[in-house]
């Protein structure tokens, strides 16, 4: 049938230009090593941009490493009305812990990445510390995104979780970071005060509800995976 031959030719011609990039092999091969080492287990994930808002009662005065990133608590307070001193101190405590656990070079790298995030929070964050990434210049957004890939493993570590990067495939990990950013964007758009406990979907404007639900489901599934790994 002439038509079938035409079709075959067209597909094959087009396929000639479709070749796997050479770097894909090294990615695939690295999985071979990982899989063998970990006995094929599924991964976990976690996160925490909400690191800043973790509630806790234990706080002790330290050298206030957090000041180096945010300026001071007063500065945070000026931008983020829902910020609490407690949350700030927790953040500081987490930083001290990080400093204790990492060598100097690694800590500097971590801090460098973190300051990109905290700068953005101060510059673009709403009164509750959430950023509407849609309003950000595209380059800035991409910077934060790339930065989050780097930061996430540190956050996971500080939260005592198995690094999400190891638990998810690179594809899923990318989706996860995107989901987190979307989640925050919706909260910012809807002007939700995230310091007041869990977000109730019904309270969001109707147009955001469906998207929010999907995003939330995905993030939760990742958390759950992480939870399972911990047990």
């Amino acid at each position, binding site marked *: 049938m002439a*038509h*079938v031959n*035409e*079709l*075959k*030719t*067209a*597909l*094959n*011609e*087009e*396929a000639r230009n*479709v*070749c*796997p*990039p050479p770097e*894909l*092999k090294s*990615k*695939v*091969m690295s*999985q*071979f*090593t990982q*899989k*063998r080492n970990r006995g*094929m287990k599924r991964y976990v994930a976690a996160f925490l941009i909400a690191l800043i808002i973790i509630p806790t009662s234990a706080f002790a005065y330290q050298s206030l490493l957090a000041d180096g990133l945010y300026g001071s608590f007063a500065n945070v307070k000026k931008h983020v009305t829902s910020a609490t001193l407690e949350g700030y101190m927790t953040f500081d405590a987490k930083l001290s812990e990080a400093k204790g656990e990492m060598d100097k070079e690694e800590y500097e790298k971590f801090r460098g990445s973190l300051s990109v995030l905290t700068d953005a929070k101060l510059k673009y964050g709403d009164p509750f510390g959430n950023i509407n990434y*849609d309003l950000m210049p*595209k380059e800035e957004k991409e910077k934060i995104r790339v930065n989050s890939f780097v930061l996430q493993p540190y956050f996971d570590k500080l939260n005592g979780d198995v690094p999400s990067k190891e638990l998810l*495939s*690179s*594809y899923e990990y*990318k*989706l996860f970071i*995107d*989901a987190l950013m*979307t989640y925050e964007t919706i909260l910012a758009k809807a002007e939700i005060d995230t310091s007041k406990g869990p977000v109730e979907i019904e309270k969001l404007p109707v147009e955001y509800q*469906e*998207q929010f639900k*999907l*995003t939330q*489901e*995905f993030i939760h599934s990742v958390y759950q995976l992480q939870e399972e790994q911990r047990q």
Partner: protein
Amino acid sequence: MDTKTEFEELIRRTRSGSKHAYGELYEETVKDVYQTVHFLLDDKSDVDDVVQEIYVEVLRNLHRFNNDKPFQPWLKGIAIKQISAYRRRRWISFRNYQKMSQQPSEIEGDFSPQVVEGLLNKQLVQLVEQLPFKLRQVIILRYLNEHSQEEVAAILKIPVGTVKSRVHTALKKLRKQEELGNIFFGKVENI
């Protein structure tokens, strides 16, 4: 290579932990897999990731592979499963929505005089890419990968009769689309 014995050997060595064998297995198969994924995914920027996923699954399931059966269709079955899983992830839709709303398409038509024939091929491929996923699947497996109807049935886990009818429907649709296109061009020429 024939494949069957050579694949058997590579699979055996991969199973016993040879990274090198796995690398060869990858080299032998990746082009075909990559092209299949390319044609079945709407968002080409995700092709690399999905292919990577496929090879993770291959590694994970290799111990289940039955040596009496041909390897390529088995591999293609995994590929299709992963592609479908990718499509199923419900929230992908909102992600695409986001992408679409944020980034105006960066793909520009290539009108360099690479020419008419190339252009026609492209149009045909575009028509294939506009087919519903189920139809596109059979067309790609059948006419790009050149799997037999029986193999396609095994890969998709559907009866051969269904494969036949899908191929038929797909070709009919393509023809119809093409005719529509020709009429359009015809009119333009007549002016």
